[in-house]
């Protein structure tokens, strides 16, 4: 499992006495979604040669969190999602949605799913498609119509509700995908690359919707390549590579409180001073009329600042720079041994 930091059990609490008999009882909230040591091995239909798409993945989702599934192409994200949805069966391991199997109808009643690059029946209109989805969730036609209208309005598709889906652009199809995933007001929302095909405004809308769903109490599991947006959106992430979990944990926990470097912005410094700083191993770059000096260690920072003060250099700002999720992700993949497959 690599450097797993799964802290999903961290919220187990101990209840006090039960019925005054001094009995201690563990009250662990039922995991919303639990993936335990799941593996998926495909066989080539011609040669029967096995191919391991997922190898022993374990995840546990808490109620009301946004959980990101990150990884390069072929990491096993989509296969994991398909196993959670019951579209494909695990070769080993178990998946439980509120303690139920993925194929269980009661479990699926509480799920919403947006596939990667979604495609819907192009002979239907958006409203007709949502009507079909409503029937599959046993919604009355009135309820389905009301919710469909609300969602189409919320996603900006109101004017195109009667247009055949074959005339929808990629972005519109993605928005309809969100509509159909939210129609049953799901408790778990599973989104495979939700930002795919969306323009910047669409991505901002999508982030807003996901935050609103979290505020409503829904748990969101999303896979994504867009790490900058994942970092600001997800409470926890799992980094997958070649079918394995490299790391699981809260975004800030994974990135650490540590500072990777300090950026000191100063006014003009002499060439000699710049050369000296470079000689000491610091990066010195011109930035307009200012200069930025990047220092790695806090102790060295003190030395550099003292030097500037002594030379009478005006210091504009000193800012710590923390690692981004993208940098952490790339490092985790590289440290796993092979880099991108």
């Amino acid at each position, binding site marked *: 499992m690599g450097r797993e930091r799964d802290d999903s059990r961290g919220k187990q609490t101990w209840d006090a006495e039960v019925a005054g008999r001094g009995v201690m009882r563990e009250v662990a909230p039922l995991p919303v979604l639990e993936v335990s040591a799941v593996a998926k091995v*495909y066989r080539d239909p011609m040669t029967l040669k096995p191919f391991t798409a997922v190898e022993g993945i374990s995840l546990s989702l808490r109620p009301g969190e946004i959980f990101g599934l990150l990884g390069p192409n072929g990491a096993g994200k989509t*296969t994991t999602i*398909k196993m959670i*949805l*019951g*579209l*494909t*069966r695990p070769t080993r391991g178990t998946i439980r949605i509120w303690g139920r199997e993925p194929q269980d*109808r*009661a479990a*699926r*009643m509480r*799920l919403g*799913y947006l*596939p990667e*690059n*979604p*495609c*819907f*029946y192009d*002979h*239907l209109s958006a409203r*007709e498609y949502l009507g*079909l*989805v409503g*029937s*599959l*969730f*046993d919604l009355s036609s009135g309820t389905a119509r009301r919710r469909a209208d609300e969602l189409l309005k919320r996603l900006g598709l109101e004017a195109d509700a009667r247009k055949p889906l074959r005339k929808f652009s990629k972005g519109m199809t993605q928005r309809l*995908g969100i509509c*159909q995933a939210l129609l049953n007001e799901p408790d778990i929302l*599973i989104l495979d690359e939700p930002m795919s095909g969306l323009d910047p405004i669409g991505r901002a809308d999508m982030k807003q919707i996901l935050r609103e769903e979290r505020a409503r109490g829904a748990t969101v599991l999303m896979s994504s390549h867009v790490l900058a947006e994942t970092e600001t959106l997800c409470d926890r992430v799992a980094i997958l590579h070649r079918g394995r979990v490299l790391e699981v944990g809260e975004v800030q926990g994974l990135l650490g409180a540590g500072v990777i470097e300090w950026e000191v912005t100063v006014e003009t410094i002499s060439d000699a001073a710049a050369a000296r700083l470079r000689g000491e191993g610091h990066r010195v770059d011109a930035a307009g009329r200012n200069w930025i000096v990047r220092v790695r260690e806090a102790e060295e920072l003190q030395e550099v600042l003292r030097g500037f003060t002594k030379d009478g250099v005006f210091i504009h700002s000193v800012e710590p720079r923390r690692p981004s999720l993208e940098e952490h992700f790339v490092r985790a993949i590289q440290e796993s041994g092979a880099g991108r497959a």
Partner: protein
Amino acid sequence: MNRVLAIAQNTIREAVRERLVLVLGLFGFALLIGSQALSPLALGEGRKVVIDFGLAGSMLLATLLAVFLGSSLLHKELERRTVYSILAKPIRREEFILGKFLGLWVTTSALLAAMAVILAMVVTVAYGDTPWSILGSVGLSVIELGIVTAVVVLFSSFTTPALTAFFGICAVVVGHFAEDLRYFASRGAPPLVRALTETVYWTLPHLSVFNARGLAVHGIPVEPERMLFALAYGALYIGGLMIFAGTVFRRREFR
């Protein structure tokens, strides 16, 4: 049942909006009107020829519709990945297959019924009396279409459109000649061929059970006993095929 009906309704919409049904319907209409041209050749038996030709032509078109729409029924869903969103919803795979079957059966039966109405109108206008006897024959053909549709849905649940169409057509042809095959095999064929023929005879549907065109042509109604037998046989056969198709589809992996 709502979920099955929702899938069936969607299948009907898809078939109608793809216009294949309309094209075949117009073709059938032209065929029925054109059949009037044959009546002078029939030496006073024009009414019988028109009914026979009309019923056979209608059934052929409805069967072709079942085979060609049905063969791409699931393949298209998988290719476009529309099935992923649907099967992630609270619907059993058996319900999905059953809905697809029902939708296709209703579509093909509606085409057959529409053509039968046109046939009845053509005969009524041309010969002055309504051929009510075609009702029983059309009823039996609807059951036969159910079996053909179920065969096609079964094959489409695990194989390619081309193979589905091939097996569907084979089932129709062999199903209509099952009795003849068995008769010829019983007359001096080698034991292996006889055993093979017996297997085919008992496995494939006996579609000749549903052919009552001869009675309809002569204005003889289908006896209730025959209708009941055909209904029971059809229900059992369709039920068996649907259970098999549902089992195959349930085990299918969506990569």
